[in-house]
């Protein structure tokens, strides 16, 4: 059992998401930075399907109610256990009653806390993830929540520390032409892949809103809504692109100019308002 004492701006339970329900309007959801969540599970020897906690911009404080093996990954928020500095990207044992606390990460946005056995809240449609768009899954964490620990532990972990680079504040993300790139002037693709873009404050798990040069369409007609994927860069009539993340709607009615390579979605999920990002055509 883990007791939540404070949760910062937003902390949720996340796993690898809900698959196979998009046709009835349920998006995948799941950890926004999949690589960091997967690493956290590996460090404590969990089944990859185990649920972890996703803390947004630090501020999470939890108390172990029994001895627990945990690991922190993702945005490198200063972590303290009963006031003493705790390691990142490494397994860490909390004794019963000890309090783990995250500060504000100096870079990146989302920090993951895995606990050996996984966070054992009930699954909804096969996943323990909080879908912030449709409200499926457990509610976002609140102070006072008591989280059961599950049984999704596999072999004993045998890694002391994972050498992982912290998230970049100026990442270069690989993009592929989107299904509707021909709905735009050729200059739009050039602008997207040569200019610098700023992440705006109205960004969240659904998507990043970016500001930069206006992306101009070549056709003005209306696109019938069609399916979306994480990484899709949809351009609404105002010309400012939205880069969809894990809680994206299952369909959208604006043309998708480009799609971020799946390998770079984790880096995209660590961008925070004010960060600069560039896009390069994938090789």
């Amino acid at each position, binding site marked *: 059992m883990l007791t939540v004492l404070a949760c910062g701006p937003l902390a949720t339970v996340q796993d690898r998401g809900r698959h196979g329900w998009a046709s009835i309007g*349920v998006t995948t959801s799941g950890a926004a930075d999949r690589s960091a969540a997967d690493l956290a599970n590996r460090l404590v020897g969990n089944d990859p399907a185990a649920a972890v906690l996703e803390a947004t911009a630090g501020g999470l404080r939890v108390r172990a109610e029994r001895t627990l093996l945990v690991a922190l990954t993702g945005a490198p928020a200063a972590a303290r256990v009963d006031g003493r500095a705790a390691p990142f990207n490494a397994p860490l044992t909390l004794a019963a009653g000890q309090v783990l606390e995250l500060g504000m990460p100096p870079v990146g946005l989302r920090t993951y806390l895995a606990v050996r056995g996984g966070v054992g809240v009930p699954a909804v449609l096969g996943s323990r993830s909080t879908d912030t768009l449709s409200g499926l899954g457990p509610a976002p964490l609140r102070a006072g929540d008591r989280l059961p620990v599950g049984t999704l532990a596999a072999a004993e972990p045998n890694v002391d520390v994972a050498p992982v680079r912290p998230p970049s504040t100026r990442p270069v993300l690989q993009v592929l032409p989107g299904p509707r790139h021909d709905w735009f002037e050729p200059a739009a693709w050039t602008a997207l892949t040569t200019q610098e873009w700023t992440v705006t404050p109205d960004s969240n798990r659904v998507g990043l809103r970016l500001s930069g040069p206006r992306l101009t369409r070549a056709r003005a007609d209306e696109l019938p809504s069609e399916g979306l994927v994480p990484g899709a860069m949809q351009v609404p009539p105002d010309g400012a692109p939205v880069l969809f993340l894990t809680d994206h709607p299952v369909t959208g009615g604006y043309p998708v100019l480009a799609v971020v390579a799946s390998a770079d979605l984790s880096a995209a999920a660590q961008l925070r308002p004010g960060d600069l990002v560039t896009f390069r055509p994938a090789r």
Partner: protein
Amino acid sequence: MLPYGDRALLVEVADLAAVAAVRGALERAPLPGQRDVVPAARTVLVVLDRRPTDLDVAALRRLDAPPPAADEATRTVELPVVFDGPDLAEVAALVGRSVPALVAALTTLELTVAFGGFAPGFGYLTGLPEDLHVPRRATPRTRVPAGAVGLAGEFAGAYPRESPGGWQLVGRTDAVLFDVDRDPPALLAPGSRVRFREVG
């Protein structure tokens, strides 16, 4: 067939019948590593857990010519509807009928769930004759109650939960449209047939 990033392909088709055929075929015989199929108005998105290959493109091309989908197991859902929506009189005027004649027309139709996507459990119902097509409201409502039954263009639909919306509301249903603890969770899944039954 359009590439869509490195984990998906977007199949473009001519009409909703072809959307249904492609969706049905992919549900019966999924591609290797198929994670999700997202039918929409003129497309079917196929999401894989791996990079799509030429073999996938070839397999999907073969689906482009819709096979006879008659053997698809369909279920008919009867939705009890109270026809007292705030836009009922306006819709009746728009289609040039009396309210009772409009209700009679709506309750004799067999509709089909073409696709979802707006919210969990929302189904875009097709099968409205052209003379029952009405435009969306000029100003969307900020709050449409759960269960509201509406019309917009070639579609009818029922809101699974309270949300904003611009459809013309003709009635309401107390049917549970979405329940995560039910199998299947969505009452109106793509391919389902739907009839409105008037209740008092």
